[in-house]
């Protein structure tokens, strides 16, 4: 039987999201009976990402899988082995699932063409980062009291949409969950066709609050957007003034999210990161359960609860 893949959330549906989140809730509730026992999960990270790699590894081990980890440093990946050769090798070694992080958009899609193993996209270039959006939805559902409670909530996605794979998963997934979205970003951090998603584009976080945002989803700003050959942002003070989430934005009850790692004082003010309105710790905390659920579903391993 050919495995399912998790490559993109561009075309995801409410039902699909609910399936993952329901299972994730079970994983989060307590130990399951090693649903992935006997399975081999291979982490192939062509781009450094300790946080995501650790989260996936923990998710696989908690569900009972064997884990092979190829990271960029000190492996064949560093020696420039190609994507397809790596995938074919892992396939021959008997991997049941390949968790792939790669600097180029579409890498996971190509990998899936060359293996019978399940492919889970752990971030490909500026393309997609589906498990991030899923764990975001998990954290949000918890806070709002259920997946159905997300319907009609307003989310402002703030910052560097242009370079963000997180945004490209979050936007369609949050929409499929029934949420209303807007973008807050300077034109220099948006595609030229900023209307690509058909969303309103607002000029500041203050405007997002006026728009009625329930959630402010801040994206990470790479420092090199201010320097380099063609700078896109003038300075930290100006960015923080218009695109930074500050304490004043929380007064109306808005929640704050960020995929991490946060540049404190840039995307999110230092005193907001750990505020009660911040879902940032919940997002990190949702990672393992959601990724366990994703691995189980992609490998077709239906779990059963350990008898109490």
């Amino acid at each position, binding site marked *: 039987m050919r495995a399912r893949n998790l490559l993109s959330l561009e075309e995801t549906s409410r039902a699909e999201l609910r399936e993952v989140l329901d299972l994730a809730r079970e994983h989060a509730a307590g130990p399951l009976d090693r649903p992935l026992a006997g399975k081999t999960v291979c982490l192939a990270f062509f781009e450094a990402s300790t946080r995501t790699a650790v989260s996936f590894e923990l998710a696989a081990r908690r569900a009972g899988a064997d884990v092979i980890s190829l990271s960029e440093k000190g492996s064949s990946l560093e020696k420039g082995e190609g994507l397809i050769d790596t995938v074919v090798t892992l396939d021959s070694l008997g991997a049941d699932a390949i968790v792939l992080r790669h600097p180029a958009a579409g890498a996971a899609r190509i990998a899936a063409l060359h293996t019978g193993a399940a492919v889970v996209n752990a971030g490909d270039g500026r393309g997609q980062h589906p498990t991030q959006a899923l764990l975001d939805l998990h954290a949000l559902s918890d806070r709002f009291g259920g997946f159905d409670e997300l319907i009609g909530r307003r989310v402002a996605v703030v910052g560097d949409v242009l370079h963000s794979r997180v945004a490209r998963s979050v936007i369609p997934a949050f929409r499929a969950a029934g949420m209303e979205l807007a973008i807050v970003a*300077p*034109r220099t951090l948006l595609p030229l066709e900023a209307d690509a998603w058909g969303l309103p584009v607002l000029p500041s976080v203050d405007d997002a609050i006026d728009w009625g945002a329930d959630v402010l989803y801040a994206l990470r700003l790479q420092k090199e957007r201010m320097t380099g*050959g*063609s700078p896109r942002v003038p300075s930290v*003070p*100006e960015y923080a003034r218009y695109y930074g989430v500050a304490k004043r934005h929380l007064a109306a009850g808005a929640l704050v999210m960020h995929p991490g790692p946060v540049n404190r004082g840039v995307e999110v003010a230092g005193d907001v990161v750990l505020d009660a309105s911040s879902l940032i710790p919940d997002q990190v905390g949702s990672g393992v359960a959601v990724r366990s659920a994703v691995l189980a579903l992609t490998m077709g391993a239906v779990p059963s609860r350990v008898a109490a």
Partner: protein
Amino acid sequence: MTHGAPTNIPTHGPDDLVVRGAHVLDPASGLDGVMDVRVSGGRVAEVGEGLRGTRSLDADGLHLFPGFTDVHAHWRTPGREDEETVETGSAAAAAGGFTGVVMMPNTDPVIDRPVVVSGLVRRVEGESRVRAYVSAALHEGLKGERLTEMRLMREAGAFCVSDDGLGTQSAGVLRNAMLYAKDAGMPVILHCEDHTLATGVVHEGVAAALAGLPGSPGSAEDVATATALVLAAETGARVHVTHVSTALSAALVGFFKGNVPGADVTADTTPHHLTLTDELVRTLEGMYRVNPPLRPEGDRLGVGGALRDGILDFVATDHAPHASEEKDLPLEEAAPGFLGHETAFSALYTELVLGGHLSLERLVGAMASAPGAWVGDGAGRIAEGAPADLALVDLSEEWTVRGEGLLSRSGNSPYIGRSLKGRIVGTMVGGELVQDRTGARFGSRA
């Protein structure tokens, strides 16, 4: 609140002054004939015949135009107050009939931080006789590298952004700057010059060849103009190309205006590029160094035709005062730039209108209506409710330009010694006469 609108002019002027019997010419309002204009509370209250007011100004035989707007001036403040101050620059502007001026940011320090913008805005409020708009820098230090804090500077009172004095060398950098300026809601004024081509001190033409001066080819301007126009069209930013000096650059502007719907583009040229040519560099005098350089007759005619046809929207002087020690030098060692405010109207009236190349109506449109509309705030027209910013002109007065007669702190006018026809008699800003050569024509009759 309208960001960037000058606040130095009180909204309440003396009540009820009637400017009586002038020939009012305002293309924007379609006025062309002898009539009265009543001014009240700093604004135009009434236009018509036989108007009554508590005071009157007899303007028989004079012309009354909307005040001129100069979107390109260097008042050298802060940093080179020995060359010009807000006080002297604005006095020179008023003497030339200008009621609104955009100040370029290539000062010392460069106007590239919010705190510097606020400081200059305060100075303008205290010292300027005319409405002075602050242009902030597009890039830090005008260097074409890091973007400036445009949104914070706009909140501090900046009106537009420009790296004038320098062209932007990287199209990628310029494109992001345009996108960012669009977000900040500010127009971008572009000095189009490719510094890999502009390596000389004068136009690379016959005069340079014969005089033995290093030349910069017309392409130095044209290549940069083309880049700017392409990027303006793609980004949709509001872009103003300043001091267009070649026939080809003017034609490029015309092409984009006519064929590229997304381009929000305007352009100006200068009085000197409309009236002088590079023949003057044969003198080898430092006075005649200017950037962009004086061009051959073909370019002068091409630019003039484009202004006549509205392809170039308006005139801006690039008023650039320099101390005599920077100008009394061999041309190659002199600083580039001319004074502009005080001679602009007279030079253009004499050379172009009396020469039969431009109608008086189009000249007023190019000095008042179009640049006034560009800065907004109702500037550039004589109409009920519009600011009482007016220029009273004697078209028959003949005068000779003399350095010691100029109100600018510097003396580097290329027209010194020339006899010009048509002169500003009075300039009114917000209902106040800020320049007054009317010879106490005030009457007391109501």
